[in-house]
Structures are given as C-alpha cells and as structure tokens.
C-alpha cells in the first residue's frame, strides 16, 4: 500500500504523532496483494470449482476514492474498512447486525457494514465517518454531537452519526418520537440517548438546507 490509510481523514491535524494515526497505519501496513488473487464478480453462469480460500481482488469506492484491496470473498465491508484499508472509524460492536456501531452509507442509504459483503458492495458509493468533514470543518452532525454532548465513551458515535444523517435525509427527524424510533438501530451503552436526540434536532435544519 503506497498511500497512507489515514490521508482521507483531512480534518485531522497532521502535526506530530497520535494514537489513531499509528493504529490506522499499523492496520493498513498488514495489507499485501498476493499474486494468486483472482478477479471478482466475473461469474454470471454456472459455478466453476475454485478455491474459496484464495483472496479476491476487489475495488471499493469509499468516500469518493477508489480503494483496491485483496481479501477473502467472505470479508465484510466492515472488515475491509478496518483490517484492509486502515479506515477504523467504523466500529465493530456486535458483528451480527444488532448494535449499529458499524453503520455506513451505501449509495446514500444507511446499512450495516458487518452484514454486507465487500465483494458485493463493489460499484457502490460507500460513505464512512472519515468522509464526512470538509477540510478542517466538521459535518454539521459531527458538530452537533460535540455541542450536545451526545456521547460518553464514543464507541457507538461514528455509527450514530452516519445513522443520524440518513435519519434526517429520510425525513424522520421532525419529531422527538420519530428520532427515537428511527435511531433505535443504534445502541448506546452509555445511554446518551437524550443528548443524541438533541444533536439530531440541532443538525437537521442545516442538513435539510443541503
């Protein structure tokens, strides 16, 4: 991998050393593309016997960038992001579609990256928390989570924020009870729920403006 995995996180101050950059770099450095990798998604016809243990070459479009990787066909989008591309913003909570910590946008719709196969997500536009900020400016939902103190430990926050942005765009953020219902797929063990509702309400008008 020639590109720093954290380079797409343009909002982060690049001065000196920080733990997140080290972790992300260490995760990204583990990637190597074996020569035996096979091309993905080419079989429209009858099954041909192949070795399922071999990695597959894939191309994911993440935060506006094409990101090649080579991984098992069973690799989820979440594992592709975290273990292969060094994008550790999306969090692994339950890994079974029950907690929402891994929520990303796929073609603008919020989905669970832990139950989405990376190989099947090729060709789609994937948005993670790393792709939200513009330059040094935070996305209005990120700013609202800070302003409203909408997290404690922060582990569920990237998923909460992606889910909240989709919640607003779906038109489900006009009433408190709608926000609670349509944010129910994101569990917060610290129970910051009232503050999360407040954050969604704060950011909604700005997101709706476009």
């Amino acid at each position, binding site marked *: 991998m020639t590109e720093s995995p954290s380079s797409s996180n343009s909002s982060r101050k690049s001065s000196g050393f920080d733990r997140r950059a080290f972790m992300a770099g260490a995760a990204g450095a583990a990637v190597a593309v074996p020569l035996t990798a096979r091309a*993905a*998604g080419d*079989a*429209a*016809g*009858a*099954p041909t016997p*192949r070795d*399922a*243990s071999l990695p*597959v070459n894939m191309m994911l479009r993440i935060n506006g960038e094409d990101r090649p990787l080579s991984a*098992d*066909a*069973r690799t*989820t989008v979440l594992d592709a992001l975290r273990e292969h591309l060094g994008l550790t913003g999306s969090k692994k909570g339950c*890994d*079974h*579609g029950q907690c*929402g910590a891994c*929520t990303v946008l796929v073609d603008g*719709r*919020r*989905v*669970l990256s832990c*139950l*989405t*196969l990376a*190989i*099947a997500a090729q060709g789609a536009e994937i948005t993670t928390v790393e792709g939200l900020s513009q330059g040094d400016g935070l996305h209005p939902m990120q700013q609202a989570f800070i302003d409203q103190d909408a997290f404690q430990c922060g582990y569920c926050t990237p998923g909460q924020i992606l*889910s909240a942005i*989709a*919640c607003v765009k*779906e038109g*489900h953020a006009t009433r408190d009870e709608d926000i*609670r*219902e*349509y944010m*129910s*797929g*994101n569990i917060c063990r610290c129970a910051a729920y009232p503050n999360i509702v407040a954050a969604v309400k704060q950011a909604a008008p700005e997101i709706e403006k476009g």
Partner: protein
Amino acid sequence: MRPIIYQKANDTRAAMQALAAAAIGNGAPTESSVQPLAGGTTLIDLMKLDVMRPSTLVDITPLADSWSGIDPQNGNLRLGALARMSEVAAHPAIQRFYPVIAESLKLAASPQLRNMATLGGNVLQRTRCTYFRDVSYANCNKRNPGSGCAAMEGFNRMHAVLGTSDFCIASYPGDFAQALIALDAEVEITSKAGVRKMPFAELHKPPGDTPQIETVLEPGDLISAFAIDGRWPRSLYLKTRDRQSYEFALASAAVALDVRDGTVSDARVALGGVATIPWRAREAEALMKGQRFDDALAQRAAEAALAGAAARQHNAFKVDLGKRVVAHALQRAATMEI
C-alpha cells in the same frame, strides 16, 4: 465464517443456472451448499454463527431490476420479492390501502436492516431460538435433526405456544408474513422449471417431526413476488415486545376488517411471536363473520385465536398476552378512520 465462493447472477437465467447446483441432493434448501444472497441480514449472520454453512453464495441482487416493483395497480397489489422492506413501508399507496403491511414492515428490525433486507428474504427469516443460533448446544432438531430440543426444558420464554410439536417449539420471528397470510396473499416462485404460484399460507410448514424443513420450497427455488387481491384500508399490525422498538414480538396481531353498518362482513386475524409459523386464526375469523362488532365479540375472537395454545415453563404469559393483543387490535381496527 467459513470460506466461500461468491458469484453474481446478472439475470434470472444466470441465477437459475448458478443455483442449479443447490438442487442436487434432496436436503432442505436451508442446508444446501449453494445459497442465494439478497439482503444477507439473516444469511451472513447465521454464517458467522456457523449455523448455516454454504460454500457458495449466488448474489441475486441484480435481479432487482425486474423483481423489486411495488405495484398497487387498481386494488391488485403486486410486490417484487427483492423490494427492500424500507421502500415498501414508506410507499404512500401501501400506507393508505394496506396499513397492516406498512406497519408490519416498519415495526420490524431497525432502519439499517430494513434498508438491506428484501421481502422475499424477510418471509424466510429463520427463528431467533437461542438454542438454534448457538451451535454449542448439540440438541436442536432444526439444526441437527434427531438430536432433541434444548428449548423444551430450557429457557423458553420467547418460544411458541401455537403450532408446536414434540420436536420443536421455536417461534417464527417475522412480522410481514403475518400481514401476507391475513390478506390471503399469493406467493410467486421462480425455478429452473418456470414460474409457479400458490397461497402464501402454504409456504411455511409447521415443525412436526421434521423441523429442519421450514417451507415447501425446493433447493433452487426463488421467491420472486407476492400478490394480494383487493384493498384493506381497515387493517393494522399491533406488536408487543420487551422494548418499544427494535425487538422481536412477544405477541403480535395482523388484523383486517370489513365492517358494514356495524356488522362484520369479513375479518382476518394472524398471529406473530406466539407460533412456529405465520399463524392464521381462522376460528377467530369465522366466529366474527356476520356478527355486530363490539368489545365482547373482539374478546370472543381473541379467546378462539389462542384456544389451541400449549405453553411451556416460561412462556405461559404469551397465551394471555396474545389474547389481549388480538382483542385490542380488532378494537382499534374497528374504530379506524378510513
């Protein structure tokens, strides 16, 4: 998760060809080494748990081009099997003419899961029985035929009280299927041999002595659409659960009424959370037809709906809860403004 081969089927013919390997052998389709992949919300989860162990996944999402229509027509609804739950729940005509369908979808799972899961996959969603989902329990007749049932004398608070057998008491977890069965839906199945249709009520099989066989589908079959005759504006889905949102039903009811001048000309009642399969309460319906609707009638229908219930140690509460859910759903439906 075990290693897999992934194939993308770009059209129906390719899907049928790729799934043909699944048709070799005569096991249950859920046991086949070749599985169709749509939303993946059940399949990928169960593969991670090692409950399902396919070696090949055939991605059928490209078939959505022709299999995802939401077509209310003039009172003859057709729903493509690859339509996403969230799209159908948000469709204005579904909300207006089939509220029981819109509500059953909206009250299921989470927004993220509803964005992923398709209608066809949803009706085939597999039980949440903890003993089925945890492979460290050897005795599960559904997962390991002939091994016994750990739930019988285990923690069975979430389990079924209707349609059970000595082999399995796992409850059917879905919501949308109750709406379909209540409205006499037809299911369209596409296979290599062509397209066939049958009543949705015939799709699921009660556990009996073969709980591993959950539907009449054969390996290689794909659900391609659902169809419903007529509109049901006086219908709703009532779901009770341990949490207000994002939880499976303890007891739920899909009800639809046609009430003319205070008299019930048609009534539909289906139960969720309490039965091993999507459960139509035909005794309750028959008892109401031709009668004047009042609270006493709703109560009698509720008693009839749960009359055959057989509870275990921890789930007896579902019998009373189920009755209250049915009665309340009928009362609400009767007073709906449509």
